[in-house]
């Protein structure tokens, strides 16, 4: 303290007034600066551990939303059907959409059984091509209809009505429409046997209104069932039901994936904590001479504990903050590479990582200190 002889007396007096705090801080900082190598390796371990923990926690909370988006490619998870096959009221689509509030996509479908020119029964559907394209991304379509009186013909239906791609007639209740196939549709299911027209064409020809609205609602299962209830209230004339095979498969697969990810993340975080533990233990053991000198100079056990605890805790805090930033970067990178979508940084993870780091750091310091405390300072100073 008195190494600066020209310091004004009041400065010396001020320092003397609170010697503990400034000396404490000074020791903390000098310990880190003088032993840069060891401190840096301890800090590095801390940073890596908290970066990994941050990235994993971030992914774990985000992965569900990401995978859910993939599952939405399945198509509808809610269907609205007129009771007993009846048409829905004209306002049903508008009301469904306002109940949905932009969280999903609703596509109307109208169906009739028409006859081809040689008298075969065939299912003809009217729909909104732009919407159905977004809803059912698995539809394999050679060319989407763009003009009026163009139809999308299922692969099996095409072989019957228009094997050479020529225009054909469809008759329903005495009305005939002549349509030309724009492209063929292949799904491997019932759609292959159908012919799809634009809703305007379809209604003008058959006079039948949509009887089904297929909805792909986004969000968690709770949000989807909320959407379902709002739609059921908005369209009381219709039956609104979830598509169980989609919803349950989604919940099931998500559950398994999350469990596997949770197990992996726990293992990784455990390993990272282990890494911190062994590095910090080495660091504290390495400083047994400092410890001995302080003890020999009359430092109390409490002060020593406090000193090492403060050192470990500040290492934990600094490591956690730097690691958090790096971890967010890793999570964003994984989001880009694997999901082709940004991962939203979750700042809620920070307190968890911070707390975890400090606890692990304190634990790592506590173990060697309890060993050192039992040793006489003279023994350590003699190098035994």
């Amino acid at each position, binding site marked *: 303290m008195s190494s600066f002889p020209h310091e004004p007396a009041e400065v010396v007096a001020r320092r003397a007034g609170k010697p503990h705090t400034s000396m404490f801080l000074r020791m903390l900082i000098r310990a880190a600066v003088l032993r840069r190598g060891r401190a840096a390796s301890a800090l590095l371990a801390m940073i890596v551990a908290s970066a990994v923990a941050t990235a994993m926690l971030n992914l774990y909370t985000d992965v569900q939303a990401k995978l859910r988006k*993939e599952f939405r490619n399945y198509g509808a998870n809610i269907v609205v059907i007129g009771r007993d096959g009846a048409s829905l009221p004209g306002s049903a689509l508008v009301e469904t959409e306002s109940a949905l509030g932009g969280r999903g996509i609703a596509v109307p479908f109208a169906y009739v059984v028409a006859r081809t020119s040689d008298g075969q029964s065939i299912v003809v559907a009217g729909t909104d091509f732009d919407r159905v394209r977004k809803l059912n991304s698995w539809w394999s379509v050679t060319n989407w209809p763009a003009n009026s009186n163009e139809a999308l013909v299922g692969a099996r239906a095409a072989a019957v009505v228009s094997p050479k791609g020529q225009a054909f007639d469809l008759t329903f209740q005495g009305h005939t429409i002549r349509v030309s196939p724009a492209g063929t549709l*292949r799904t491997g299911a019932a759609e292959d046997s159908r012919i799809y027209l634009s809703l305007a064409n379809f209604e003008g020809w058959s006079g039948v209104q949509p009887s089904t609205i297929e909805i792909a609602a986004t969000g968690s299962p709770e949000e989807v069932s909320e959407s379902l209830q709002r739609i059921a209230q908005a369209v009381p004339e219709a039956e609104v039901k979830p598509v169980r095979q989609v919803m349950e498969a989604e919940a099931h697969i998500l559950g398994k994936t999350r469990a596997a990810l949770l197990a992996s993340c726990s293992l990784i975080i455990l390993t990272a904590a282990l890494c911190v533990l062994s590095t910090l233990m*080495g660091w504290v053991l390495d400083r047994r001479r400092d410890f001995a000198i302080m003890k020999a100079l009359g430092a109390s056990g409490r002060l020593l504990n406090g000193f090492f605890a403060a050192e470990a805790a500040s290492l934990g805090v600094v490591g956690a903050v730097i690691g958090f930033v790096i971890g967010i970067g890793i999570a964003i990178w994984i989001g880009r590479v694997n999901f082709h979508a940004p991962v939203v940084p979750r700042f809620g993870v920070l307190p968890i990582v911070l707390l975890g780091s400090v606890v692990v750091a304190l634990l790592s310091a506590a173990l060697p200190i309890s060993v050192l405390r039992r040793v006489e300072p003279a023994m350590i100073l*003699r190098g035994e």
Partner: protein
Amino acid sequence: MFFRLVYESFRRQKRRKLLAGIAIVLGVAVATAMIAIATDIGDKINREMRTYRANLLVTPQADTLDVEIGGVNLKPPSDGAFLDEADLPKIKGMFWRHNIVGFAPMLPVTTHLNNGSAVTLLGTYFAKPFSFGKEDFVTGVRSTNGWWKVDGEWPRDDASDVLIGQRLAANLHVKRGDTLTVGGEQHRVSGILSTGDAEDDEVVAPLAVAQRILGRPGAVRRLYVSALTKPEDALARRDPKSMNPELFDRWYCSPYVQSIAYQLQETISHSHAEQIRQVEQTEGNVLARIKGLMLLVTLAALFASALAVSAAMATAIFERRAEVGLMKALGGANASIAALFFTEAAILAVLGGAAGYGAGLILARQIGRAIFDSDISIQPVLFPIILVIAVVVTFAGSAAAIRKAVLFDPVFALRGEA
């Protein structure tokens, strides 16, 4: 002398060796378990998906168009062609038989209840036992349609009990255990079926019952097949007719959904097999994402365990500077001291790696049982790879610390002034 030094070092410094060894065991165990999970998770999730929904549909080749709206068949039941039930067990004789998780035939029959109203009776397998060659297997909707829920008991395939759809049951006030007259026959209702689909308004019966009512023994209208497939690539999408024999063999022997469909067509006479694109295409994407995610997580795990092992090794060597100083003071050459430490590290790595591999196997198995109700399989070829990785990581972790220890002036080391 060298071996004695190594031996004594292990004998006398049990605590230190144990600490470093534990770190290696844990690190290797985590790495092994993660690699095992990452390599197997695709298959596990794929199987989970396949027990939920079938991804292939086989229909009669000469069939007329489906006249079906919202899952309700409007086609006259006698119309069109049928598949032959006798062909079904042959599926288990196909090249990709092990990839077939299950299949379920369907035969919808329009019939009437005793009050005269029309009803669809769907004939299928619930859990029908088969044997083909030496192999026994059980298949039916219970293993392909995971979302079908039954309140009560599933009927036996060789009995005449039926399931009734929940909406139909509510309309008719039928409870389980009641007797239902359908198609002029009396059937006991063993349970109420809920699917959220058209089956809620139908009666679901063993296939033989539907065939008897229709009067066409051995008839099957559709066959749903759940098969484990490989994601499509350019080869998968090519037309097999345009391939040369060599390419065709490669295509045929890859579990693409297209080649499995092709083989189903070969196996079942007069049939047409098609992938159900809604299932196959979307689930392929989901699966690819999950696999990619686990791969990246595994990389993180490998990185973390490598770091943990090297940190433990560095600490262990750092503590032994006085020993190094003594050896140097007695005239030990840097190279031989380094060799001593590397030998110790190698022994630790091999022992710890072997123990860690064993622990990792147990860990992976436990995780597999807990999450997927089945063991996670681990390729034995992983063992030497894991051991090599353990030795490399241990060496890399020790190298810097050994170098520092060897270069340190013995005077300072012996005086304890590190």
